């Protein structure tokens, strides 16, 4: 049951390094930087959400403005219920680790996710377990993504810090790890630190 409520989508595109999933409900996107997982049994893949889009289901048909005579934005959706079916929300997630035989690895799995695999938001316990090691930060720094690494890393650390009892200690430890990884790029480090300080 818990798995059902945590389910946020289904894989519709996959590669070794990342996958794209579509949400079942429009706008029910997991937040930027959150940890999600999917399965390619017997391996569980962990990924971090780095991008999200909401577009028309048909690439050729762009949405048009509809609110001229409506009192509020909510009214638009209420008067045109078909909209919920004509639009779709998708998110991309960067694979940062996997679990095999109950063991957690902070590096890429042997195979990518399968199409139509369900994607779940990780539970606080899983996030805590995963964030015991900061090895995944290296993947985030070294991958070229549409969002800047500073934004993604800070968003991810902010997300993770929320489930740690001692937020400050967690963020300081992460900051120190980043300081080592970005030892020659102080400006980048500074940009991240400014974004994660409380």
């Amino acid at each position, binding site marked *: 049951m818990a798995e059902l409520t945590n389910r946020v989508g289904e894989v519709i595109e996959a590669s070794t390094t990342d996958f794209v999933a579509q949400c079942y409900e429009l706008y029910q996107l997991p937040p930027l930087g959150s940890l999600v997982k999917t399965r390619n049994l017997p391996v569980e893949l962990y990924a971090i959400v780095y991008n999200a889009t909401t577009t028309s289901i048909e690439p050729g048909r762009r949405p048009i403005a509809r609110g001229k005579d409506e009192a509020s934005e909510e009214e638009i959706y209420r008067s045109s219920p078909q909209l919920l079916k004509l639009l779709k929300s998708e998110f991309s997630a960067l694979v940062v680790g996997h679990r095999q035989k109950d063991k957690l690895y902070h590096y890429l799995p042997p195979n990518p996710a399968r199409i139509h695999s369900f994607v779940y938001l990780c539970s606080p316990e899983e996030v805590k377990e995963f964030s015991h090691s900061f090895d995944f930060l290296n993947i985030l720094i070294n991958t070229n993504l549409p969002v800047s690494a500073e934004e993604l890393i800070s968003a991810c650390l902010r997300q993770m810090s929320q489930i740690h009892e001692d937020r400050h200690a967690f*963020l*300081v430890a992460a*900051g*120190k790890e980043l*300081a*080592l990884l970005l*030892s*020659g790029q*102080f400006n980048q480090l500074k940009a991240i*630190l400014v974004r994660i300080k409380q």
Partner: protein
Amino acid sequence: MTQENTQRLGIVVSGSSTKGVEVKLDSSASVEDMVVGRYVTIEGQKRRFFGMITDVSLGMTDQKLTLTPPDVSDPFMAEVIAGTSTYGILHVSPYLTIGGDVASLIEGPQPVKTVPIHFSTVNLASDQDIELVFGKEDKERFWIGNPLDMETKLCLSMEKLVERSSGVFGKSGTGKTFFTRQLLIGTLQKGKAANLIFDMNSEYGWESTSEQGRKVKALKQLFPSKVAVFTLDEESSRRRGVSTDFVVRIGYDEIEPEDMALLRQTLNLTDLAVEAVYQLRRRFGRGWLQSTLDMKDTEELPEGLNIHENTLHNLRRGLETVRRLPFIEPHASADAVRHILDHLGRGINVVLEFGRYKDITAYILVANLLTSRIYAQYRERMERAMGEDAAPPIPLVITIEEAHKFLNPEVASQTIFGTIAREMRKYNVTLLVIDQRPSGIDEEVMSQIGTKITFALDNERDIDRVLAGVSGKSELKSVLAKLASRQQALIFGHAVPMPVAFQPWEYGSVESYKHFMLSEETEIKKQAEEDIEELW
């Protein structure tokens, strides 16, 4: 063991056996807590190293930080970059090492011949480490103070200390005298040696006043049965309420040409005048001084003596100065040397007070005169002991102040102190020299001083002379330069396995007296118990 004592400081990042190792500080260790002179251990792969912090510096991973410094007013930012982007660097000089196997554990710490591997952990030395290296307070080890910023007792093997000559250096007011008192008590309690102290300022025998105006007890008050106070100035001693054992008087006939040679500078004698002394001594025998003073001019000179009038004049003026010294008499009634030897032979320490005669002429004359006679006696006894397998005399430690007056390059080859320093322990006589200007001491003599204890020194030349010939000189120099101006010292040389900066325990407090009185008592008790056991 307290939390702080096991504190991890960082890891070794580079090093060489000649220059020591560089240690990158962990972020948990504040660079401001690291002080030069502190004692650390390095856990290598196969062996453990003991070393001393000799330099502390700052490092950073990105040079841009110097151009655009981060906003450290933000505590989060400051906490993150401390120990990561910016970090402290320690320079550690390893001195000793101990292997992990049983054989090396029994052997104890050995001098370092290598460096620990990369990224070995560096810890602050714990009490146990200090104990492992310097030993515990016991029958032969004497507690001299605490290593800098540590509570541990630093102990010194007194037996080893008296094996070679030693020196206490430091500028005036740094605590030399107080520490020397401590050392003397140490040799007295544990060294199995007898002390002869030429006490120029009357500080070691009876009580004196500290700079804070407090009365401080000295040897005779603490160990009345083991110490005898001899005096040159009975009146001064009586006024200060000192119970003296013997009044030293020196007869004219006891003064030898060598004594005059030593006084050449102080009495402003010419070389020819010193030369003339030897001629006169040959001619007149032991009564040469009296005979010379009796002569009015060169006409009265016996035939065969070729002394110029000016020279004789110069010499007579010098001899007059000597004669004016109140403790010099035409004929001394009692033989001071025999009395001193008699006391020393019974293991009683002798403090010779100079009272009002603080004049350097008196000091040099008396110290040299007595020492050369005593030394001759010791040599004779020692040689006899070697030949006949008799018991050698008790080791003797002669304490002299203002040592550069006796051991400067010009006179060191002539004075008996130069000989003792060089010949060292062959004849069971060693020196304890106390000086505030070590640069004035002859280099050869200095290199023969086994254990050196140095308090703060200002003068670059003094520092160089004290450290001459010591390995890792530049590192020790930085430690020495950072010593506080009072009550902190660096000890290195024969009696200690490695150099260590320390703070002598506060001498003069009631607790301090109690401490060594207590250790004295327990020893007596132990001895008594042993005797009883033997009896039964």
